């Protein structure tokens, strides 16, 4: 059976490639404008629904966006934001460091040796399923009212993510590359540094991005239950005063900050570190 010949459809007007390029550029600009308009429409719709809900709910239970915006501005201008936000960030960062220090070796063992994989498997899956509430209250019971509670909660909740991703990264290492390096007499240290580490870097970034979203929520939750400072502590204060505007304002500031970190710091850093392997970056 012969392949059918597909003829190019007759074009309406023979355009030169310059004209074609101009057309294509115009189409892409139009597409970009449309996307931007829809993005703005998305935000507008969100604020609109909020405004309508604020109007219909009983007085005082949901402030409208403007009131919350004014409260947010007060918090920022009053300087309360900086100290509490940094307290929260510091606790999250320390908890993260602990999670990395424990999770990465565990993940390495799980990825390389069958025995350790079987050993840790159940523990890591169970730890990943436990509700965040449990971690928050448990760390509070252990440490009482102190800064160590949130740190422990963050560490507990992020360690399984780090371990699982590192393990998966190690298992994803190209075995023929390892065998080749061994055949050419490279030392185990060199193999570790030149073959293993570069392969697992994308997985580690995935772990960081995944647990980042969960970690700060748990951090705030622990502070709500028993913090002495930080964003969660402020949220609880405002809640106890029945100041819902304050609760939402603090929440909004924290969300804004976290989205900025996610977008500007983590994503940029990932692009930088993975600049030499464009395919991994493309898969977001």
């Amino acid at each position, binding site marked *: 059976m012969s392949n059918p010949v597909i003829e190019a459809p007759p074009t309406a007007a023979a355009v030169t490639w310059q004209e074609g390029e101009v057309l294509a550029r115009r189409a892409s600009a139009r597409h970009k404008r*449309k*996307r931007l308009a*829809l*993005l703005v*429409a*998305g*935000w507008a*719709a*969100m604020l609109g629904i909020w405004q309508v809900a604020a109007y219909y*709910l009983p007085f005082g*239970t*949901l402030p409208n966006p403007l009131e919350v915006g004014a409260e947010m501005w007060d918090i920022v201008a009053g300087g309360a934001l900086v100290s509490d936000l940094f307290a929260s960030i510091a606790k999250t960062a320390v908890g993260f460091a602990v999670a990395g220090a424990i999770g990465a070796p565990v993940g390495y063992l799980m990825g390389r040796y*069958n*025995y*350790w994989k*079987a*050993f*840790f*498997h*159940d*523990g890591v*899956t*169970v730890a990943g*399923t*436990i*509700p*965040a*509430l*449990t971690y928050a*209250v*448990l760390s509070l*019971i*252990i440490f*009482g009212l102190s800064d160590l509670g949130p740190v422990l909660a963050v560490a507990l909740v992020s360690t399984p993510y780090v371990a699982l991703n590192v393990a998966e990264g190690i298992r994803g290492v190209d075995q023929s590359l390892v065998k080749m390096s061994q055949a050419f007499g490279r030392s185990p240290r060199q193999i570790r540094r030149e073959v293993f580490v570069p392969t697992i870097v994308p997985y580690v970034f995935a772990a960081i991005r995944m647990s980042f*979203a969960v970690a700060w*929520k748990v951090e*705030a*939750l622990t502070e*709500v239950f028993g913090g002495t400072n930080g964003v969660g502590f402020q*949220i609880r204060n405002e*809640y106890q005063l029945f100041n*819902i505007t304050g*609760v*939402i304002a603090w*929440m909004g500031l924290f*969300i804004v900050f*976290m*989205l900025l970190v996610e977008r500007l710091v983590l994503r940029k850093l990932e692009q930088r570190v993975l600049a030499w392997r464009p395919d991994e970056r493309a898969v977001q």
Partner: protein
Amino acid sequence: MTQTVTRRRSAEEMAGDAPAWRGRLTSNPAARSTFYVAAFLTWLLLAALFERIPGPASVVDRLIEEFRRGEVFGNFADTFYRFSIGVALSVVAGILIGVLIGLSPMARAFLESPVMVGLSIPAIMWAFLTVMWFGFGHMSPIVTTFLTAVPFVILNVAQGVQGVSRDLRDMSSSYGIPLTRRVRDLVLPAVSGYVLAGVRFAVIMGWNGVLLAEWFGGSGGAGYRARYWYDANQFAGFAAWVVLFVGVIIVLDQLVFEKASRRAFRWRDQTH
């Protein structure tokens, strides 16, 4: 150039040399039981070191006590009622919105930011707000469960729909494959795994949400009962409830979803 090299032995030869007891000791079941023993010993050690951490004996005591008082089933029935309604709603809404986002880039541009914001709002926030809005009752835990779970379902479903290979879609349409077969053999296998992953996420996130809402809501349920013991400074009672609600979610996740997701991804995992 006539250097002699000592012959390297294969992995099988080396394994054959090791005595049998060593093989049995390093087998997977042995590793798992070692883990459980180690975890239990760690618990004993921690309970001995910190007086605030309840030991296994007192937790089991409390657990039996709670069962005997008949607190367990009533409270779990309440929790499950709220949880299942919330999760079911979030799955339905999540699949609808997720399919929309996956199919149309314009819907994606419009809905991207709301989903992103939804993902970053913690469950505690919804618990606070819904208790204010709906008071103490079934409504607040249900809405909290729904709102915490729905963004995760949307994300996963959208990813699955986008993952349906465009080439395969084009090919099946050019070979004139009937729509029913196309849906059955192409779209469903590609999407079902993602939907399942989304539902699984929804269950885990929703379970946390329902417990938090009950903790602050004060209208019965597992979360409320755990708070009762926590407020009474009876940490053994709290730990007993932790054992219960962690046990429930693990049974649900491992027995139901692990099996189902293996089935759903069967076509993909067979290759490696």
